[in-house]
């Protein structure tokens, strides 16, 4: 069963903690509830996005540095 992770806030989605750092997670990676999977920049603040399910990331719906709306699907997690 796969579960979508929805954006809690609108803004810009980042997959990396900084431009010169590797991505938090890649497709195929395992995640646990609470793991950081990205950042949302909203009004010049950066807010961490946490996984709300455990399992394997099967797909990122939104790319790095892309604008997002609140409630938009960010990625899909295949639950074990």
């Amino acid at each position, binding site marked *: 069963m796969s579960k979508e992770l929805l954006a809690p*806030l609108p803004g810009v989605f980042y997959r990396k903690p900084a431009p010169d750092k590797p991505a938090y997670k890649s497709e195929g990676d395992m995640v646990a509830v609470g793991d950081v999977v990205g950042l949302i920049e909203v009004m010049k603040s950066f807010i961490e996005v946490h996984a709300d399910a455990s399992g394997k990331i099967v797909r990122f719906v939104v790319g790095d540095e892309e*604008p997002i709306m609140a409630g938009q699907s960010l990625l899909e997690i295949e639950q074990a």
Partner: protein
Amino acid sequence: MTISRLLIANRGEIAVRIQRAARELGIKTIQAHSAADADSLAVRMADEAINIGPFQAAKSYLNIEAVLAAARQTGADAIHPGYGFLSENPVFAEAVEAAGLIFVGPKSETIRTMGDKAAARGAAQRAGVPVVPGSEGRVEDRDEARKLAEKIGFPVMIKASAGGGGRGIRVAETAEALGAALDQAAAEAKAAFGDGGLYLEKFIGNARHIEVQVLGDGVSAIHCYERECSLQRRRQKIWEEAPASVLSSDVREALCASAVALASSVSYRGAGTLEYLYDEKSRRFYFIEMNTRIQVEHPVTEMITGIDLVREMICIAGGQPLRYKQCDVRVSGHAIEVRINAEDGAHDFRPSPGKVTALRVPGGMGTRFDTLLYPGYTVSPFYDSLLGKLIVWDTSREMALRRLGRALGELNIEGVITTAPVFERLVEVPEIRAGAFHTRWLEQWLTTTKPQVAVMEQSNP
């Protein structure tokens, strides 16, 4: 050369503010905007508007090429940079000058000089303006540090030369504590920046942030008295006043005269602000930096002096000499500004963008609300959280506080969470009413009153 078509290279409430001043001068307004701001109040109010790029500031409001192309395309003869974005970028000012256009602000070389901390400090010292006493550059060893610390007086602050983010900073209260503080700061600086170089500065505890507004036409300069902006959260001002209630008239005169001396020494042109730390105990002030642009909190100065600062900066840019002499600038009453941000004060000031479903703006005598809002507007997540500035004026500070409370009660913004409830509480706090605060007071107050803010929110859904 007078200005007839002004391109506004900014957004939000300051873009609206600039349009108002330009329109009253008979100048056509052209609003540069990002794709995300196509529905903004500034775009709706402008005579013309031009899209300069996508939502990212780097590709629109910070894009020098795009702004210059917009000016050419629309036949603008001047560009107002507002605050933030390109307003203090000497490369931009230079490019505007090179394109044969008027930059509404100082000359590019003035921006460059005053934007460099060491150069600005040097200019201040040459103009006889007091700066925070400290080492000229790095201190090389303990002996040198000790001698210098004895000279400037304890407590001293030790800072990393490569510094930033508060790391590598130590305060030594006494000569005995200095050695250990130096070692700790050096180790921390080395770990954080790969460079253990340190410099020394007098530590001014519980300082107040006081700044002086200046206007210059490149030949002469005047001051429009001071503002106090000590109420800050994470170094962001959220409440500003004019005049500063803590100053005696002799200190006020000396402070403002020092600002004019520095502005004159660099042949300052336009509106500018000199920021100082004020030590209440010793009644001394120390220059820290100059902002070579209009500031967010300029309205409190306008309210007590009756001078439209944005109008004056446009007139000066258009080639007019200063229209005021120092003796024409008089202070009347007291003004307070609070920044209404789209942030949730009950939850660590978490941003709250979204659609404004209802809006009631306060009005009446001595009440001004400079805003980017209109009912139905969607507050963008891509830019800062400032929704508007509520400014009140009254005959005394005490009456201005009452008026602020009254105006906050009238303000109603639905659909987004704002900082207004924080100010409704602050106007009642005894320290605020007494004017007894410093630059770290607000953060301390927020930490200790957090539960009460949360309770209030629950009982008032």
